[in-house]
């Protein structure tokens, strides 16, 4: 992307105003998406984004500039802008010697999506449309989306680091509308992995479409969701977002440092039920949040955040780790070269327990079984969070009974962690997610075994 000699010159320019640290992040991303809706392939779209962001750190101040102009002159002017923004006292010339560090990518790509004919991608959408419509006469609308991207990044910094990564992701999603006497309902299903077109060797789009259609048609007969506090059982793979929101964000060191986390100062303390062991793992092969190096050049790592209910560590990026004089944890990520990196999750999941999932339901008198949670959000300073239920059922007398309509669940992170009273031996990763923080979206994965939270507030309309 950029010549090595140009990079070391740029880092020198960026340090000229007396900065402590300078970094060049270059990115070249190509993406394809294809959309089917209303029975038609509406469009194929191709995108190309390429540019570089230059970060200069002086003391506690960061200067940042980015440019889409990768010529030496364009890069130099961005480096000067970043340096001016973080001007320190000193100055002088430093020569940066770069050492290239090889990257181990957790997922070798078998079939580059760019080598696959567009007709083959479009054909997947047609098959999904047919399969969803064939599933039930009450299916009235189907949309499907195929997306692939190849993101090549290069990171170099004034500590002499030079590294790169090549990240290929492929995604497929289906949305279905079903119509009945009670109005319309929707169902969705998506799969996404950090792999190439071989994604479709692992997943059958007909089956994905069928699952989305089933979700929508099931809800046609749904009762209004109950309201108030009750036990909530979450199915395997269906609720990783609970931990992403309830505690994941609160374990990000940048929020902790600003006292904007209820988990500040609690390392070594029992913060969750002893059943809970929570891991964030960027090395998890093929998962949506996996990569070789993060967007600051740190290799992906597997980090245990909570072990047996005890808070073991937060997640770290360059700035926060430097301030604490400790190692980074491979959680410095950014949406694109146009953004500053910050602490972000990768693939966050709860390790399996020992209970039988059927026993968990059978021992619940009255409550809600959530097969699939939707998106959520959290206020990390108070721990209060919400998330939606995309597919949920009532539990009555220890049995799963009627489906219920969509609604939010609301709870408080630290409280929910201690209220987990059953954890099954099954486990599955969930759907691919995009985590938003400070206006930046990055791909993340999550996973859970079947589990029960003793008390959560269900936000429906029924008494």
């Amino acid at each position, binding site marked *: 992307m950029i010549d090595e000699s140009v990079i070391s010159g740029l880092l020198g320019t960026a340090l000229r105003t007396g900065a402590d640290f300078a970094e060049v992040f270059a990115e070249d991303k190509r993406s394809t998406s294809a959309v089917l809706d209303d029975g038609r392939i509406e469009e194929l779209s191709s995108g190309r984004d*390429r540019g570089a962001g230059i970060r200069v750190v002086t003391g506690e101040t960061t200067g940042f500039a980015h440019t889409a102009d990768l010529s030496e002159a364009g890069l130099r002017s961005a480096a000067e802008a970043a340096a001016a923004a973080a001007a320190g006292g000193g100055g002088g010339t430093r020569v940066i010697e770069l050492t290239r560090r090889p990257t181990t990518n957790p997922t070798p790509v078998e079939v580059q999506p760019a080598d696959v004919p567009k007709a083959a991608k479009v054909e997947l959408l047609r098959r999904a449309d047919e399969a969803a419509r064939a599933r039930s006469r009450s299916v009235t609308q189907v949309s499907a989306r195929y997306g692939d991207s190849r993101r090549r990044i290069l990171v170099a910094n004034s500590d002499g680091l030079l590294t790169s990564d090549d990240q290929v992701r492929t995604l497929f999603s289906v949305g279905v509308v079903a119509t009945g006497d009670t109005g319309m*309902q929707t169902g969705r299903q998506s799969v996404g992995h950090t792999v190439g077109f071989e994604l479709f060797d692992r997943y059958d789009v007909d089956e994905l479409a069928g699952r989305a259609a089933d979700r929508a048609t099931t809800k046609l007969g749904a009762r209004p969701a109950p309201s108030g506090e009750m036990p909530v059982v979450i199915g395997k793979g269906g609720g990783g977002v609970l931990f992403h929101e309830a505690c994941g964000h609160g374990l990000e060191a940048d929020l902790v440092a600003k006292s904007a986390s209820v988990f500040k100062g609690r390392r070594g303390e029992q913060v969750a039920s002893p059943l809970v062991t929570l891991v964030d793992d960027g090395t998890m092969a093929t998962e949506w949040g996996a990569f070789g190096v993060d967007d600051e050049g740190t290799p992906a790592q597997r980090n245990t955040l909570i072990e047996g209910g005890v808070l073991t560590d937060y997640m770290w990026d360059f700035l926060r780790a430097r301030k604490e004089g400790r190692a980074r944890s491979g959680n410095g990520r950014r949406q694109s070269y146009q953004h500053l990196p910050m602490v972000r999750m990768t693939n966050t999941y709860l390790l399996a327990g020992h209970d039988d999932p059927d026993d968990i339901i059978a021992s619940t008198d009255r409550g809600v079984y959530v097969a699939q949670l939707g998106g959520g959000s959290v206020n990390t300073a108070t721990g209060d969070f919400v998330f939606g239920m995309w597919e949920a059922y009532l539990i009555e007398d220890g049995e799963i009974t009627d489906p219920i309509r969509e609604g939010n669940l609301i709870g408080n992170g630290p409280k929910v962690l201690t209220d987990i009273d059953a954890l099954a031996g099954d486990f599955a990763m969930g759907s691919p997610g995009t985590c938003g923080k400070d206006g930046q979206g990055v791909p993340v994965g999550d996973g859970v075994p079947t589990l029960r939270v003793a008390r959560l507030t269900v936000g429906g309309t029924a008494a």
Partner: protein
Amino acid sequence: MGGAASPSSSSSLDLLDIGDRIVARARDGEQVEAVVGRSRHTEVRAYDGDVESLSSAESQGVGVRVVAGERQGFAYAGTLDDDVLDETLAEARDNAEFATTDPHLGLAEPDGVAVPTLDLFRPALAEFPADRKVALALELERAVRAADPRITGVEAAEFVDAMGEGCVVTSTGIRTTGRSTACYVATYCLATEGDETQTGFGFSVGREPDDLDLEVAAADAARRATRLLGATKPQSGRVTVVLDPYVTAQFLAILGGTMSGEAVQKGRSLFADRLGEDVAASGLSLVDDPTNPLAYTSSETDGEGLASRRNPLVDGGVLQRFVHNAYTARKAGTASTGSAVRGGFKTTPGVGCRALSLAPGQHDQPTLLDQVGEGVLVSSVTGLHSGVNPVSGDFSTGAEGLRISGGTLGEPLREFTMASTIQRMLKDVVAVGADVEWLPMSAAGVSLVIGDVTISGT
């Protein structure tokens, strides 16, 4: 390498030139649209009395749409380099080959509606020096800390500005340009009492720095955070709620989505077959008017280069119309309402409302609270993206607020949900406030009283 636009350019002439050159390459029987855009933005963040970060950046790029043989293709590039422009047109052309034919496809065509002149670009912002931006962010942080002794932290205090310019050029005769400036200060703070922490946000938005009011931003954030201290979880039940203007704006933005011609045609709107029917309380009127200069989302033209125009959607509770872009209008046998929306040059135009507002009522919020007597003031909601389904109308969000008791505000409440359906909430509107407030989103805020909403707490 040639062709790369100069960052210091002060007019959109070079963008138009790029658009013209792309469109000139349209072949026989082919329509070509080029959307060319460039923006500059600065972001200053203050933390603990220091500059935490200062970012400055320029972005530019082009989106190319090709319609040929009743098929459409699209491609974009985040650069204006000559070599990439050719590649982008070629990709869009190639992509069209794989789409399904549709006789209604086609670009917008000039419709004779005069483009309004709006004062959206202020040179004062371009001339505002970087050190003054830094000073504003630092001053905001100080003001928040000084607002109340219970403010124990300011997680974010920032100044952000943006200048954008762009053009739409088509082989069907559209050739429009637009440019605008915007800036804001925003803060997010923590208030602590005992071992309890609550948070609040505040902001002030304008088209130039003189529009910004730091004191308002600071006071709002401090008030929102401190008034929630001591909040408890309410009992579940059915109540009358008063939505704060900021919450109403979020509700209206969701409602606007159900009135898109695209949602209607694809069987995804709960109002699809209800034109001319009573869909809301009789006192409710909703208009989408991106020509209103008070709206921060106003613009002279829409995403396809057609003139912006005022569209009444609901009048006296009766559904009047849906909004359309060129494609959905052609399919519906009507004219575009100038409602093509696009997220910059990276997407094809969708359909959507751009500057919604409710016709204001007679009373300010204190009077409405007095009339309500007993209920809940909802000051913020969360989880709109996860708990609201605009197709089925199911509505359930996390909420925070204050008890309304004896017609005045009482104790703070948190960790509860409010639930109903979009259809019922519109019918259950009891009153609209007089306090219309324009916000940096696609809908204006106003106090809104809604009866019979279920809240879930303990």
